[in-house]
């Protein structure tokens, strides 16, 4: 027996006291903190062990495609003109499919706002009546090559960014970010909200479109790579990325805007909104993941999205099928006057950033927001380190300085999530559960286990 002639090196999994014995006897050892797997049939866990060589090969291929993605902001247009399948009476929303009856407060509020914006209704009552009349259709952004933060509402007339993945040639669409406070994406639909949306359509959009055209496209990957070195994780913190974007477009805006007053108003708007870049970070993530949406045998998670009622995921090897479970209420820091009682369950397509290895997965890059995760920089490091456990690899295009420039954990591997019982960690904003109030806090949330359990069982059946 080879073991008898070797130095004993022990991996201890389970009782910590056994490791203490080893330490006392000067035996080299490492301790693994055991977490039970997610609640799936035990024979499935044994079965998948025999299949992992296949899945790992497929995942490697998928990860390669994700890492080679080169998303560029190429243009802008009205949703109706560019989003595939977009119609006047279609409203796109965040997360997995949901009907009006099941929509949460903030999503209903945002739908009401969109119907008023489109001129289909004059007030809340008319809009609600129309929304449940059957004349309005609803569909997830994710099913139309689009993504939207929080309620994620996109209606026909809204202008959208067009992001092209130059490597794979696919396009993704996302709206312009409205800023914080009372905004449509948090379910607010008062006069000022609609007015701002009108201004974004009539002033912001044409100016930005011309500037983007003038600049010949803006490389989003390079902005994010730099922003991670400047304290962003590009989900809950976008201050650096927004500043870099500002530097990229400002000269072009000044050169192409019809007058200096218009140019200044647009630049002021971007400057005042630390989250302006969020929608672009989401579009980049979606554009990077879209090409691996359906790879045989791959267990890479391609979508994580919430509609405020349910949390849904898609997995490469199971293609376009959604796997869903109830959306959890985030742990958050609340604005003065609000508490967890007011919080809506998790909402938004923005978890696409985590799916792409950013956001919560890269929180070690963002010491400025560690108060969301316990207050210490080391807490943030722990969260990112844990996410390496459930990813297929590391994306070296996006590096984390505090981890000696290690690439972000990228390509969530469903099998690892289930086997290790470690759920993806997501940074998130929190909406008030009633429509019309808006954001009440920001914080973090772990993905619920149910969608992963369902997806795993489905994948095992396909594989075996």
């Amino acid at each position, binding site marked *: 027996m080879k073991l008898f002639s070797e130095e004993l*090196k*022990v*991996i201890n999994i389970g009782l910590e006291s056994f490791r203490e014995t080893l330490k006392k006897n000067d035996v080299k050892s*490492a301790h693994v903190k055991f977490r*039970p797997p997610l609640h799936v049939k035990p024979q499935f866990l044994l079965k998948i062990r025999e299949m992992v060589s296949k899945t790992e090969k497929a995942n490697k291929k998928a990860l390669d495609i994700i890492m080679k993605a080169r998303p560029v902001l190429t243009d802008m247009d009205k949703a109706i003109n560019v989003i595939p399948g977009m119609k006047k009476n279609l409203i796109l929303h965040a997360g997995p499919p949901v009907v009006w009856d099941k929509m949460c407060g903030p999503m209903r509020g945002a739908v009401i706002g969109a119907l008023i914006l489109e001129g289909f209704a004059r007030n809340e009552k008319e809009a609600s009546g129309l929304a449940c009349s059957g004349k309005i259709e609803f569909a997830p952004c994710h099913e139309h090559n689009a993504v939207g933060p929080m309620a994620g509402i996109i209606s026909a007339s809204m202008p959208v960014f067009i992001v092209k993945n130059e490597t794979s040639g696919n396009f993704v669409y996302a709206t312009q970010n409205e800023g914080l406070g009372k905004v449509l994406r948090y379910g607010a639909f008062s006069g000022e909200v609609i007015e701002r949306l009108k201004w974004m359509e009539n002033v912001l959009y044409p100016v930005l479109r011309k500037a983007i055209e003038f600049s010949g496209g803006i490389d989003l990957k390079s902005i994010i790579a730099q922003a991670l070195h400047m304290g962003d994780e590009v989900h809950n913190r976008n201050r650096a990325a927004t500043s870099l974007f500002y530097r990229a477009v400002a000269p072009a805006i000044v050169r192409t805007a019809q007058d200096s007053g218009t140019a200044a108003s647009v630049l002021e708007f971007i400057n005042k909104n630390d989250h302006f870049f969020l929608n672009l970070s989401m579009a980049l993530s979606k554009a990077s993941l879209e090409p691996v949406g359906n790879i045989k045998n791959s267990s890479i998670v391609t979508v994580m999205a919430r509609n405020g009622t349910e949390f849904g995921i898609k997995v490469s090897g199971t293609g376009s099928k959604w796997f869903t479970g109830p959306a959890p209420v985030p742990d958050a820091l609340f604005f003065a006057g609000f508490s967890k009682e007011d919080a809506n369950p998790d909402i938004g397509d923005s978890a696409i950033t985590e799916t792409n290895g950013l956001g919560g997965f890269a929180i070690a890059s963002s010491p400025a927001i560690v108060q969301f995760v316990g207050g210490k920089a080391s807490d943030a490091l722990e969260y990112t380190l844990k996410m390496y456990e459930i990813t297929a690899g590391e994306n070296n295009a996006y590096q984390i300085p505090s981890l000696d420039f290690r690439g972000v954990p990228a390509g969530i591997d469903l099998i690892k999530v289930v086997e290790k019982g470690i759920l993806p960690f997501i940074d998130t904003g929190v909406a008030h559960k009633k429509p019309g109030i808006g954001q009440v806090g920001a914080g973090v949330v772990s993905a619920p286990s149910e969608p992963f359990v369902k997806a795993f069982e489905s994948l095992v059946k396909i594989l075996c």
Partner: protein
Amino acid sequence: MIKTIVKKGAYFDSVTLMNLAKDLRKIQGVDDAAVVMATPENKSILKSSGLYDAETLAAASDNDLVIALKTKTNSGAETAAKKAEELLKPKSSSHDMGVFKSGQAGHSIRAFDSLEAALNAFQGANIALISVAGKYAGALALKCLYNNLNLMIFSDNVPLETEIQLKKTALKKGILAMGPDCGTAIINGTPLGFANSVRRGGIGIAAASGTGLQEVSCLLNNMGFGISQAIGTGSRDVKKEVGAVTMIQGLKALANDPDTLVIVIISKPPHPDVLKKIAGEIKKIKKPVVSVFLGGELKIPDKKNFYNVPTLEKAAMNAAVLCDAEKASAAKQNLYNAVSGIEKIAQKALENKTAKQKFIRGLFSGGTFASETQIILKDFISPVWSNAPIVDKWKLKNPLNLKGHSVVDLGADEFTQGRPHPMIDYSLRNSLIISESKKKEVSVILLDVVLGYGANMNPLDDILPAIKTAFKNNPGLSIITSVTGTETDPQVCSKVVQGLEKTGVIVMPSNAAACRLAGTIARGRRIISARDYEIILRGIKSH
């Protein structure tokens, strides 16, 4: 009132939680407390102990932690809840920057989040010690095998078909799968799991019994001998379905190991087909082999240098003689002297007893000791009742309702559901020591005290109060025990022996010796007969 707290996704191992519950029960105003993961099994335990709160627990599942408290007052519940939170907080969050990137570990403080992370950081790892809940152990062990790690699986309750799959895979890869349900092993001199600190030497052990392995290795150590390797196979290895895969693999490994001069096999009686397989393997071995199948027998007529013996003590003695006869003679002499002392001790004990005091009550933490005790006692007295009887008709109907001469294995499944093993937690046995001492017919309480890594670290503090109460209840009572341990064990054997003796406990050098003394007393004769001597000496005579 019942207060229930559910913490979603907070996993702790059961040993941590049982200790925590023990601490919570000590808080004033707390009548009962349970801290468990919300598995279906644990939920039914909560139900049966009246701690189940259907409303709170409906949505809780395997990965959620439940703190259930039964208290008289609201404030008691609050205090206990606060204490629980405090105890559950991680002790330290120290960081070891060296493991952020792949590289070297080995003495790192940081616990790894996964096997992969540990493998990545800890180059050359060659064995995994798995002690997670049984239902998770199988898939984890399989992953270890695919990574070419030898295995010691301490976990029990692993499905039998999973054990077979694991052992076959290991065999194919030429690596060792000790367990599931392997409590003890000593590899390259390192104690793994529940094991004692013994010196290295020429005797190799393959054992399907953890306590048996501990007793034999300690007896050998205390006679001046050492262990080359001690391979645990797990208790089910000798079942028909498993076919002694690990036992045979272990025997081959010991036969080929240049440091092993003598081989000892320890097991409860294997399935007859399996015993044949083991015999076949023994025939191939050129080194001397000693086997003890507690309650079973093995004859291999034309095999030289093979000795099947009835007790653990004799197995140790034979192995010692075979290893170095000269060195063993001193140990043999000591044992002879101890035996001649038995008469005096027994006589003295009998002087204080009433006419009614007749019976032995054996309360064992080691299952193999419970077997060995019955085997030895049957030469003195009969019947001996047990929850794990060697004769089926002597099964105790209720393992807590002892009658006549009884021997109870407190490590049996019926006692270990939801509480730590009796080698760690003495509370159940302590209450039995006290309740049995009150019975007029009880003459001898026979115990085992197992030391070593993994066992109770403060055995005297935990057992002496119960023993003192027992002597107070019953001044004529004899309490007899052996202490399985060595001087280099963390508890230090001689200290424990002294502490017990000071309190009036009779400590014998082996469980077999303790049984013979108990048997002699139970026979109740004031003068030991020639036949008694013969029986006693038969136990220690070598070949």
